[in-house]
């Protein structure tokens, strides 16, 4: 009986993964599905979007008068140990940064780059900036329009020099959450490292001192409280700290 079960399970796994190969094409660079048919469907949507929407079109930008109320959800302060998502290691470091107003804060940019280095807020501010009024759309179903100011990620990547093998950009936050985007999104003109919101410094609950904006995907790709950036040759969304292993789609352009 148990032997039969194992056989059946092996068969189902095999069937599921071959279905996945058919569904998603077969590339070693793809986001992993862990044999989950839902993640295979996510990959199908991702591939279809990349195939049918190949241009770097800009997400709609709005007028100043369209700026709306903006709820802050998820982690609203990584230094607060009472919160459900709290990092024992990073939380106290973030608290230190809060105390001296991000004076010593730096973000590292490393991995498949020519010259890995770190940037202070002042250094990021000295790079060319972009201000955009865009719609933040949450997977929960709500939306808000806000003005974001920051440095386009492609300027930062140009400053460190991408290696030709680079395919993904991974980022990590002070609440230990991690994620990555492909180069198509990373090099998009509206993909910015934002340090300003609605004309002032980024508030704590919206991701101070620096958050990402990925305007062609849902809100949770636009990670708050950034602490490091790693350029990758292969897909790695942070594993247990990333979305897929936590039961969420990696691609949320839909």
């Amino acid at each position, binding site marked *: 009986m148990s032997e039969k079960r194992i056989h059946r399970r092996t068969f189902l796994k095999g069937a599921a993964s071959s279905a996945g190969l058919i569904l998603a094409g077969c590339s070693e660079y793809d986001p992993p599905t862990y044999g989950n048919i839902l993640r295979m469907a996510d990959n199908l949507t991702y591939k279809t*979007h990349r195939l049918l929407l190949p241009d770097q079109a800009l997400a709609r930008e709005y007028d100043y008068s369209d700026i709306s109320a903006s709820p*802050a959800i998820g982690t609203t302060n990584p230094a607060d140990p009472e919160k459900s998502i709290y990092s024992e290691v990073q939380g106290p470091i973030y608290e230190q940064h809060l105390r001296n107003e991000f004076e010593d804060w730096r973000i590292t940019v490393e991995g498949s780059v020519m010259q890995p280095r770190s940037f202070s807020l002042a250094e990021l501010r000295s790079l060319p900036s972009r201000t955009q009024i865009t719609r933040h*759309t949450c997977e*929960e*179903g709500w939306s808000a329009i806000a003005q974001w100011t920051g440095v386009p990620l492609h300027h930062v990547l140009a400053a460190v020099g991408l290696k030709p093998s680079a395919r993904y950009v991974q980022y990590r936050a002070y609440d230990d959450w991690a994620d990555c985007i492909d180069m198509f999104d990373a090099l998009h003109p509206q993909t910015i490292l934002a340090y300003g919101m*609605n004309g002032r410094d980024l508030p704590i609950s919206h991701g101070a001192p620096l958050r990402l904006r990925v305007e*062609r*995907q849902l809100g949770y790709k636009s990670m708050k409280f950034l602490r490091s950036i790693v350029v990758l040759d292969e897909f790695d969304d942070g594993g247990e700290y990333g979305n897929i292993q936590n*039961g*969420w789609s990696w691609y949320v352009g839909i």
Partner: protein
Amino acid sequence: MAEAHRRWVRVSHWTIVASFLTLVVTGILILMVHPRLYWGEVGNDLVPAFLEIPVSNNHQPDGWVPTTTFSEVPGSPISADRTYFIFNENGWGRSLHFLAAWFLVVTGLVYVLTGLIGGHARRNLIPGVRDLSPGKLAQDAREHLRPKGELQAGPPYGAVQKVLYGGVVFVALPLMLLTGLTMSPAVTAAAPTLLDIFGGYQSARTIHFFGFSALVLFLVVHIAMVFVTGARRQLRAMILGK
């Protein structure tokens, strides 16, 4: 004897049934995460809703810290931090919704193309001018409400059936697809016209909800009519074709 429903119709019918039911269940699940509807581009817990659906207690006006403003200027945008846990199964709910949508879209395209090329759509789904006269529709509706014995399964269809089937295939489901795509930030970056057509992201979401309501109402009437006209025979016809 000719088949009551042809094989490609039966296979598409049941594939669409499975996809549709999955879309209904996951759609309700997704709605429960934020059961408030709005008009325009913006809608969230800090602005008034156009309609609140009582399907979860995720909207708690007192579950937020006091609002702060971005500047001293009157009318400055506000913000507030959420302090409570919400019900949220979107991790699998959304992905299952889109998996089912893929099955519905692919099957639906095959069904519509086959139907348009082979004449099934013209004969059985698209109502003619005579079908649309109020007298004909009223008479047909009366006959459906008080059937004289078991009705024959499958086409030819009456005027009301044509209007409903044609409306689902050519109006309601395409509208669901388009309003669904309007909720995709990647799609609307490439095709911002969708936002203009439906009046914004939240309007598209609201229309998607009303489309869902209409389709569920159709489903209820459809199943009721199957029972009224002989469930055994109707099911046999749609499963076995005879």
